[in-house]
């Protein structure tokens, strides 16, 4: 029960088996015109204690992938194929009861909008304590004491008073901290964060981000962090996976992917970022708009917007292949392009 257990990242990283292993994940939703495939063949693996950032535009399937990890799509009427393993447990074959034990217990979830993601008519302390009681079977008093400790962990001042507060009585930053406390309440091995800083003010954003990174490193919790913000990714990621139109197009260590991107899409993204010393330089831009996933062209999904497009891109769908150890990319011409980065 000691939540300040200094289980270092290195101690956990020593464990060999990946905490998260996704293979062949495909998700489809029923729309007006039949099934729409929003995630297509996602392969991912994450070692304990590591932080993976899923990067992509709106509609690229990153949030859906995250929800699939805890089986939340099952109840939404989505069609989910493929295999998701969390710490060796196959999520797709779990019973409902086992799934409930895993959610909140082994896997914590942080949502984007802390205003709407907390129940407005229950006190914050209640919402954290009920999670602990559910998973740990402790008394309400013990759970509240634990919630109090968690508020110290996420650095919420006047914890006693804030536990008794309703969500609307707290600022956005405090609400998101409370949300993190809730996600961490049962000491999960894996933390899933769905754009947890997007809805916050810029100054609060960085505080929450640093707090999250600190907790994640200190506790050795593995984390999948979804964002569309490259700056946020650079701040927190050990590894980065870039998603486009429901697929992972590039994956590797944060340094490799963000500083030396191989996929034209990742490159276009990194060119769109304002960088300190480039005052009078023209900002890169990404022409076109994200594809309609219900009507994807044959071949590479990014081809219509790609500045390095060749004829075969429109015919052949690229598979992921290794560029360097631990760095793979789904582009037919990635290797030949990397030398000539357009500046």
């Amino acid at each position, binding site marked *: 029960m000691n939540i300040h257990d200094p289980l270092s990242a290195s101690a956990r990283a020593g464990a060999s088996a990946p905490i998260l292993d996704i293979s062949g994940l495909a998700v489809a939703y029923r729309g007006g015109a039949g099934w729409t495939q929003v995630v297509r063949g996602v392969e991912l693996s994450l070692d304990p204690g590591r932080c993976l950032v899923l990067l992509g535009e709106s509609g690229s399937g990153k949030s859906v992938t995250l929800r699939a990890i805890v089986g939340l799509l099952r109840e939404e009427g989505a069609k989910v194929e493929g295999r998701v393993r969390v710490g060796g447990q196959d999520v797709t074959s779990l019973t409902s009861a086992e799934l*409930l034990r895993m959610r909140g217990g082994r896997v*914590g979830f942080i949502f984007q909008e802390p205003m709407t993601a907390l129940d407005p008519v229950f006190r914050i302390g209640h919402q954290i304590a009920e999670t602990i009681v559910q998973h740990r079977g402790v008394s309400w008093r013990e759970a509240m004491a634990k919630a109090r400790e968690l508020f110290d962990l996420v650095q919420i001042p006047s914890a006693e008073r804030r536990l008794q507060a309703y969500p609307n009585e707290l600022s956005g930053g405090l609400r998101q901290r409370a949300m993190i406390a809730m996600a961490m309440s049962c000491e999960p091995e894996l933390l899933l964060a769905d754009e947890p800083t997007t809805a916050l003010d810029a100054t609060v954003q960085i505080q929450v981000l640093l707090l999250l990174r600190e907790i994640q490193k200190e506790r050795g919790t593995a984390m999948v962090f979804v964002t569309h913000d490259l700056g946020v990714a650079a701040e927190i990621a050990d590894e980065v996976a870039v998603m486009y139109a429901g697929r992972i197009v590039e994956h590797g260590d944060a340094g490799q992917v963000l500083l030396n991107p191989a996929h034209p899409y990742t490159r276009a993204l990194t060119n769109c970022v304002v960088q300190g010393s480039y005052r009078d330089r023209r900002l890169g831009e990404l022409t076109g708009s994200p594809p309609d996933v219900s009507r994807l062209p044959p071949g590479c999904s990014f081809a219509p917007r790609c500045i390095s497009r060749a004829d075969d891109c429109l015919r052949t769908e690229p598979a992921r292949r290794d560029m360097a150890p631990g760095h793979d990319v789904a582009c037919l011409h990635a290797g030949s392009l990397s030398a000539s980065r357009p500046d």
Partner: protein
Amino acid sequence: MLLYVVRRILYAVPIGIGVTFIVFSLVHIAPGDPISALLPNEATQEMVDEARREFGLDRPFLVQYAIWLGNAAVGNLGTSIGSGRPVATEVMSAVGNTFILATSAGLVACILGFLLGIVAGLWRDRPVDHIVNLITISGVSVPHYWLAIMLVIVFAVDLNWLPPLGIGPDRSGGWRPDWAHISHLILPTIATAAIPMAVIARTLRASVVDVLDQDFITTLRAKGLRRQSVLWHVIRNALPTALAVMGLQLGNMLGGSVLVETVFAWPGTGFLLASAIFQRDLPLLQGTMLVLSMFFVFLNLVVDLVQSATDPRIRRT
């Protein structure tokens, strides 16, 4: 919270006074002279003037209002022109009878409406939702006096299971919780409860559907809460709306239904109001309306307070 309670109670005072004024003036501007209903047709002008003086109808309007309000404040609602008995006594006995019917119908409407609404909302667009929809649509669409007549025809006349009218077997004694009295209560209860039940069920269904669509439900599921616990969150969120609707429906029922009480000859406020109107019994009409509207003001106050106790967001404003 305490500040809110005090403020809300203070608000009720001007509302209550305004209501008394409206009640008094509405009855006054209504056409028809109470004296002409009281006196024989061949009465002389002197007899009419005498009667007007006796009932204080010759005074200026505002003076009449002030006197009436002053008397009402100490519980004196005047004397019924029709029966010659104190209005307060007549109204209180009618309120008691309506209260019995309203309590029984209110319980049925709230419990059934609550259950149907929750079930329909949780299984939205499933067969059970369609069945509930059918029931509630019928409930709000069927005129309650027609339903009352149908109930009498089927269960009292054809099947002879239940008594068709009255509050009990003997007209003399008060209401007692024995089968003879309860059997008289069943049909009026169904007729009175039908509409409120449907309204409550429909409001609650909409409220549950709305709550289920909100983000925090996903949070609750993502943190592994059991179905029952999630259901409790849903109910707690739908509760303020449900309570408001229930309170207002209960207020309607306490007002007594003129039509249902007339069909079943139930000696409640609706029945009393109807006879006061037919007899142009001004003091009785004003007294009954006053008591009923005070009920409404009071009930709205209670609903607001209960609602603020269940929803922390209301207290802040």
